[in-house]
């Protein structure tokens, strides 16, 4: 059986006030507590000065700079010695630079029998019109193989450091996208015109590496820059259709394995004085100079993939 209480009586009870407070009809602090707007932290200048003065005093008391002569002497000597060391280093470097031979002289020690041989017989032995590429990918191809592996190892390190195992919330990805100009018309129009040109230029640099300036590394870097521009303009959705982690893995694996196989063949034939089956061709044609074209393509694939992978790892931690 419930009692019927008049409304005015009910309003005085605790349960009525509690239910009102719970439903938020009345702010209990309104009119009771003084409200102040939160101001940004600011300190009067005198207070800051006194604080820094106090810190100075504390430091003086702890280290006892005025009384302790050793500490004082050390701090002075440290500064003097560091300045002296730097001056000595500067003088040494300037002195040794002044002994370097002038640029582009015929009598320089760079012009020894090695470079003479490269210049005189490079075209005959490698078949490459561009002597630099002939040197890099034929005489010193082993070094270039090492360089490609260094790039690959660098990507692996970046992967280990920056990779995120789990995909985080969808929101965070969206917010990551908000930092970029999302579907920016200017960028997209520019990219639509520029990206094909950049790609063609990069492929040209790679394929004509043995005929003109360029080669696998520079061409690969240009293609990688083009890919990054494309990604910036159109977002991850479009690039993930043709390039993700698996593609990169197989690309680098294939290119490095191809490079190693081609080079071990030429080392094998060279070390055993066997004539190589691969013809050098007529210098100046694209299909000439033996293995150099293939090696250029391999290096280009590795470098372009690495550039793009670096960008993706930095940006998203995954690709």
């Amino acid at each position, binding site marked *: 059986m419930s009692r019927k209480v008049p409304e005015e009586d009910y309003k005085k009870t605790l349960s009525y006030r509690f239910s009102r407070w719970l439903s938020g009809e009345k702010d209990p602090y309104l009119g009771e507590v003084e*409200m102040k*707007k*939160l101001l940004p932290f600011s300190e009067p200048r005198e207070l800051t000065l006194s604080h820094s003065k106090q810190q100075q005093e504390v430091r003086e008391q702890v280290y006892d700079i005025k009384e302790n002569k050793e500490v004082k002497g050390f701090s002075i000597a440290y500064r003097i010695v560091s300045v002296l060391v730097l001056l000595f280093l500067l003088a040494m470097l300037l002195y040794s630079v002044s002994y370097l031979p002038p*640029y582009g002289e015929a009598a320089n020690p760079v012009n020894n029998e090695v470079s003479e041989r490269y210049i005189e017989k490079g075209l005959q032995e490698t078949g490459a019109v561009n002597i*630099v590429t002939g040197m890099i990918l034929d005489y010193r191809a082993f070094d270039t193989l090492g360089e490609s592996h260094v790039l690959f190892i660098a990507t692996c390190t970046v992967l280990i450091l920056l990779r995120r195992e789990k995909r985080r919330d969808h929101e965070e990805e969206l917010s990551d996208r908000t*930092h970029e100009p999302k579907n920016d018309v200017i960028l997209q129009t520019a990219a639509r015109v520029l990206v094909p040109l950049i790609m063609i230029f990069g492929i040209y*640099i790679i394929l004509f590496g043995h005929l003109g*300036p*360029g*080669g696998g*590394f*520079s061409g690969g*870097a*240009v293609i*990688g*820059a083009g890919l*990054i521009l494309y990604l910036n303009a159109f977002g991850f959705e479009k690039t993930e259709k043709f390039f993700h982690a698996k593609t990169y893995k197989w690309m680098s694996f294939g290119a490095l394995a191809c490079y190693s196989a081609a080079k071990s063949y030429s080392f094998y034939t060279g070390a055993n004085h066997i004539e190589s089956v691969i013809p050098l061709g007529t210098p100046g044609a694209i299909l000439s100079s033996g293995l150099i074209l293939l090696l250029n393509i391999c290096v280009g694939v590795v470098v372009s993939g690495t*550039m793009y992978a*670096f*960008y993706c790892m*930095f*940006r998203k931690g995954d690709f």
Partner: protein
Amino acid sequence: MTIFEYILFFFLIICAIAASFSKKLLNTILIFMSYSLVMSIIWILIESPDLAITEAAVGAGVTTVLFLITLKKIEAIREPQKEETLAGSEEKEAKLHE
């Protein structure tokens, strides 16, 4: 050496000094990028176009982009919009309390 090369070398030195002395990280990156561009022109002038292509693509292009992303990740570049919206919401709250 022509006057043009002297101008380029002078600009290179100025860029190198300014990059280390500028206080904002974003400015440092942009100065570093212009340093790379000048360097690539100098590579062409001393007759090594291979290096010029690589310097322009890697030094001015990819490295700068990587630096910019890193700056964004450590939140050295802040979004102006975000701060505005925060300030706006604070004002609204203050009005509500009044």
